[in-house]
């Protein structure tokens, strides 16, 4: 803490007491504490107002029945939790969310790493390709979704134009329960891998060359060097990407909203879509808040478990 290093202005008389001065030490600590409080206060305030307060308020709403127009919410205790946790529709939502998240996380990491390894080679034009692969990440979700709706369209879509010459009929991606979720996964991967590739690339370029060279001299092949040296050294990066992608995917909403609206039927109804549906289509603030708390708890547990596991496996140096 830099505050500790700041010179503390003291009166010359007091300076003489320092050796014996318990009091002086306390005062000094208090002053440092005040400075610390002053420095963190603005951030803390913003976080409290925009993060902690909504979470607390949301927790309160989850104990109520409220349609957002009635003058007051009605307190119903844990009824919402009991209803939701025993609802088969909720179980299906949870399953869909897990499949969706799992596929996107695994896909983003594997493809991202593969791309990063490729971009790390001294190939011609790699700068351009790097930029192209990263571009989808900075596009807004709604725009990405609109583009892919066109690509997937069974009547006049791009994919149809590509597939048709070979005599094949493309599936009606977004209007078929078996294809809608894989379709969404493709879109999110397309949007995500540029980012994971970029982070992995930065990691690869920061790896110490000596280890790799030493292993090469000892006769280790490319694959062995990748598995035994690069991959373990990249573990902190993988850990970071794992957590951010899991959280990001759990909260994915924009593309789902534009492309499927949770449908057809409930085929792409993830937890975040069902929160929106309960809250803003049904005006069921209590149920929406309860679902949000459930999602919050799940993410908390997932992150804690990941942190625990990684603590043992990740070597930061």
């Amino acid at each position, binding site marked *: 803490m830099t505050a500790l290093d700041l010179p503390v202005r003291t009166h010359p008389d007091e300076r003489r007491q320092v050796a014996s001065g318990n009091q002086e030490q306390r005062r000094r600590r208090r002053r440092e504490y005040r400075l610390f409080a002053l420095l963190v206060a603005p951030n803390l305030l913003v976080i409290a107002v925009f993060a902690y307060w909504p979470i607390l308020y949301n927790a309160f709403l989850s104990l109520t029945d409220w349609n957002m*127009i009635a*003058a007051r919410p009605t307190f119903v205790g844990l009824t919402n939790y009991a209803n939701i946790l025993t609802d088969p529709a909720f179980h299906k939502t949870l399953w869909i969310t897990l499949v969706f998240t799992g596929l996107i996380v695994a896909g983003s990491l594997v493809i991202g790493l593969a791309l990063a390894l490729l971009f790390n080679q001294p190939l011609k034009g790699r700068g351009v390709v790097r930029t192209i692969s990263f571009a989808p990440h900075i596009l807004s979700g709604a725009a990405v979704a609109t583009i892919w709706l066109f690509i997937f*369209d069974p009547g006049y879509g791009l994919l149809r134009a590509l597939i048709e010459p070979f005599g094949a009929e493309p599936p009606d991606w977004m*209007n078929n*329960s078996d294809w809608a979720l894989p379709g969404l996964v493709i879109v999110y991967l397309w949007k995500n891998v540029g980012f994971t590739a970029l982070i992995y690339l930065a990691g690869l370029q920061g790896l110490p060359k000596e280890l790799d060279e030493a292993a090469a001299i000892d006769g280790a092949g490319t694959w062995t060097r990748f598995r035994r040296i690069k991959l373990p050294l990249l573990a902190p990066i993988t850990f970071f990407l794992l957590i951010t992608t899991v959280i990001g995917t759990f909260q994915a909403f924009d593309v789902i909203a534009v492309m499927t*609206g949770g449908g057809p039927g*409930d085929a792409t109804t993830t937890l975040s879509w069902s929160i929106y549906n309960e809250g803003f289509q049904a*005006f069921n603030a209590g149920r929406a808040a309860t679902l949000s708390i459930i999602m919050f708890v799940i993410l908390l547990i997932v992150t804690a478990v990941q942190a625990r596991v990684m603590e043992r496996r990740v070597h930061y140096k």
Partner: protein
Amino acid sequence: MRRRAFLGLAAAGSLAGCGYRSVDAEYEQPAGAVPKQYAGRTRVVFWSSYGGANGKAVDKLVAKFNESQQDVYVEAQFQGSYDDVAQKVAASLIARQAPDIAVLSDVTWERFYLNDALEPLNGYFTDGFGPAVYQQKLFGEYVVKGQSWCVPFARSTPILYFNRDAFAKAGLPDRAPRTWSELRSWGPSLARVQSGGRSLRSLALAKVDGDWQFQGNVWQFGGAYSNGLDVTIDQDGAVAAGEWQRRMVHDDGFAYMANSAMTDFANGLVAMVQDSTGGLKSAMSKAKFKVGAGFVPSEVAAGIATGGGGIGMLRNASAERKQAAAAFLAFLARPENSAWWTTQTGYLPVVDKAREDPALKKLIADEPNYGVAIAQLTNARKQDAIRLFGRNSNVAIYTGLQQIYADNASPRKVFGAVARRLEAIGDEVRRQYEEKVL
């Protein structure tokens, strides 16, 4: 100890008390600016859900009103779809900064009424603005317990749009099919017409919000969504309507689920859609073929659902602003304005005398499509209560329809599950419904 308990109570109190609406408080308006030439007038904020060509027509009506008098300035603010407006009005009430009037749809005004957010309008009615002026059916849908809670504005029914050029190529008569059976029997002829490299399909079914059209289809097959709040969607008539559509999609291949049925139709990808009359003008201008319009087919009965938007006044506006807003509503109820809105959009004329307006009469004479919805109004009915008063009933029904369209699910099974969902939804509002509607 005591202090802590007190603080806890205070915190709980502020948690429960602050931030919620008080029914009779006076709220501020959303921000905006009054142009210089209208300075000093009472400002009325009007939240609308019409974009594109229809939005431009709203803006023109508002501008005409602002020019027509000296006291009131109406500011129209486009807020997105019907659902968006409902969400934003609810949020604005919590924020205590609400519009004075807003467009509310056939399935959203009820929730504002049930929760005391709307101003009863009878006290504002005058000779040129009130029950005697409006089309009776459309006006009556907003009357509960003797009071009007909205007035009709952009009201619609579904009509059947058909591609006249494709019909001619298929050797079919130049009219809409009279029954669903007839429509189905035309499928093979239409399939012989090529469009975009594939055979033309007969009917596009809406992926989202198709439950509005399906409300009428259920009646046409002799069923109902509900009787009062008692759900009947899992019974024979509704199941027959679902089964007819399932067979058209999966057995015959004549119908399919479309992301935007109207876009597909206007691009010539499908021969027919049942869609709002409010899209007539834009469909006719976008399509590169001759657009036909006709009654939605019947089967064992005729019957179509009214829908679209009315305008409600928010109870939390100040008395002065309410009075000013009423002046604008009265302006919209003038026959020439109602007629002009119809000519610009295709929505029903909500004022009876508008039908005698020379401009509208001429338009109908030149282009009979504009007369279809008006003539079909005799078949129009108020929707079943579960769709109107049960929050999210519409979503529950159309996601059920998606399962039929997408997955070839059995309508009886799907509607059984939808019925359970609707019953739960009905139970949520039953007490309010029995208290405030019956």
